[in-house]
């Protein structure tokens, strides 16, 4: 709580004293009277103090778990449980990520003891868990010479969990695989459907895989090998450092596009039978071990919406990523491949993708392009990003360059075409 002198009567006091002095010295009662009135005001302002504020605050929301984009009405009522308040101003603690789309989160009123004043406004729901901050209250005495500022909290939370899309496009995965049978082609022969090679028969090979034609032609026993197809373990690594909050021309941060893409990819990968996990380099450590199934689908949906490491507002401090990378390396299963979702706005994240790839976690980068061309700085950053993409591709790390205005399917389709 802060009590503050506003100093707004100092000028009046000076004028009043000068008038009084002039009235007395010139023996002019009329001028003296003017001064006396002014001194009276100034004295009143000096003697009164800002009232003690004792109020109760209540806040209700029309829907505590809205869908993204839904309009949520917030109603705040304030009841005076103390002395009369001549001038009370209230500003509600709207969560920083939300925009007020209708009404005003402010109130200015006089409030008698026992009385209640209310106001309401509407916010647009966005991904995340949004906690309302304390309301700021400002009370002044009648003269406005002193004011008391305080915060009054009441817990209200709005949780917006976007659903995962019902279906998604095929994700171009690297040919690095787990031990379980699944849809990812490998570079080794074995059981599968696509012809891969023939080799010398080894005792124990299935009779169905013996190349009988060749046996008839040459008398040699050989075995046909098919391209093995296996299930992949994929960890989506989301860049949520400060730079990933840079926004596109529409004002949407790159992170939101990355989270959208992660949702679509989760659906696709889980539908195809892959194990999917999530990691993020953000304000808080974020790790969900890869696995399959409906429980994982629900867990990922929740994590992508409300994890504090993926907050819709940028982290306040710089994040030390090197430690997070070390942690991630410890957590990643040996056979896991990673898809790094990043706007690629600095060299460091490109280096990390390269390092993970070098450690044996085949890396792919999916990069929402939020760079613009309306200023030299934007054009330079766009060029630097292009250079990073070239460098990654030169190091055999596939980069899916996605312009968020276009559908993700399009970018993924182009990446599939580029696959060897």
């Amino acid at each position, binding site marked *: 709580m802060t009590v*503050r*002198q*506003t*100093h707004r009567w*100092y*000028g009046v*006091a*000076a*004028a*009043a*004293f*000068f008038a*009084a*002095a002039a009235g*007395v*010295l010139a023996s002019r009662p009329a001028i003296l009277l003017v001064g*006396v009135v002014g001194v009276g005001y*100034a*004295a009143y302002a000096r*003697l009164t103090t800002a009232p003690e504020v004792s109020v109760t605050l209540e806040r209700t929301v029309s829907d505590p778990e809205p869908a993204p984009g839904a309009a949520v009405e917030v109603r705040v009522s304030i009841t005076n449980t103390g002395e009369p308040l001549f001038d009370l*101003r209230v*500003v509600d*603690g*709207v969560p*920083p*990520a939300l*925009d*007020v789309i209708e009404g*005003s*989160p402010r109130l200015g009123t006089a409030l008698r003891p026992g009385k209640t004043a209310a106001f309401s406004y509407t916010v647009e729901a*966005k991904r995340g868990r949004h906690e309302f901050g304390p309301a*700021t209250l*400002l009370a002044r005495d009648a003269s406005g010479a002193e*004011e008391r*500022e305080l915060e009054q909290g009441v817990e209200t939370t709005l949780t917006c969990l976007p659903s995962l899309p019902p279906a998604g496009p095929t994700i171009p995965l690297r040919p690095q695989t787990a031990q379980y049978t699944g849809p990812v082609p490998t570079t080794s022969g074995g059981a599968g459907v696509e012809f891969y090679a023939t080799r010398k028969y080894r005792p124990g090979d299935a009779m169905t895989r013996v190349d009988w034609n060749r046996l008839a032609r040459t008398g040699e026993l050989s075995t046909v090998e098919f391209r093995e197809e296996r299930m992949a373990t994929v960890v989506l690594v989301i860049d949520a450092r400060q*730079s990933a909050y*840079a*926004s*596109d*021309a529409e*004002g949407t*941060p790159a992170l939101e596009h990355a989270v959208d893409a992660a949702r679509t990819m989760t659906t696709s990968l889980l539908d195809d039978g892959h194990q999917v996990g999530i990691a993020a380099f953000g304000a808080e450590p974020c790790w969900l071990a890869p696995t399959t199934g409906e429980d994982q689908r629900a867990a990922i949906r929740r994590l992508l919406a409300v994890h504090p490491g993926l907050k819709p*507002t*940028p982290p306040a401090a710089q994040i030390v990523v090197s430690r997070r990378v070390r942690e991630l390396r410890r957590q990643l299963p040996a056979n896991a491949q990673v898809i790094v979702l990043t706007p690629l706005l600095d060299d460091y994240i490109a280096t990390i993708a390269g390092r993970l790839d070098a450690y044996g976690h085949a890396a792919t980068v999916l990069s929402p392009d*939020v*760079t*613009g*061309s309306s*200023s*030299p*700085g*934007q*054009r*330079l*950053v*766009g*060029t630097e990003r*292009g*250079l990073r993409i*070239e460098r990654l591709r030169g190091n055999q790390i596939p980069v899916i360059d996605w312009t968020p205005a276009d559908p993700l399917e399009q970018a993924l389709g182009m990446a599939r075409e580029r696959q060897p």
Partner: protein
Amino acid sequence: MSHVKDILASFGAVLVGLGLLFVLQPGLAAALPIPRLTLVVIGLLAAVEGIRSVQRRRGSEIAGAELPDPEFGIETDPPGDDFDTRIARLSTRRGWIGGDFDRVENRLRTAAVSVVAARYGLSKREARERIEAGSWTEDPVAAAFLGGPTVPQPPLEVRLRIRLGTTPKFQRYVDRTADAIAATWEAR
């Protein structure tokens, strides 16, 4: 303290009451034997208090709470905004020498080297030499900005236009260099 305040307030209220009484009954005031000198002293005291009030007002700004503006969610900047801001800030400074200037030039040079190497299939060293020679771009301003001492200054007409334009000189040079780098990259 508030006790003293209350006593003084009560004393003041009594005096105001007396004053009002004298206004209503001027005869009573005339009966009070107040010498002229006392009145002069009271008048001067009021004038001194007036001067003190003026001094107090001069030494203090009108204060007030700064209430938050929660209507709009946090907006983040587009990428490259920090670069544009830095250039604008540097341009307002007299004589652009120092670490900031070097950082801007190094960043442009690093991007230019990579872009020229990619565009013409050169090694980094060859690209650096081409930039030093000023032959990497057709823009004389960009060529002069990153080029070595042998690169000629832009034509007089161009320099005059930059000098007379509303955009500060440094900003204009940086803008044109950034544009030349972007153009070279797009033309690869």
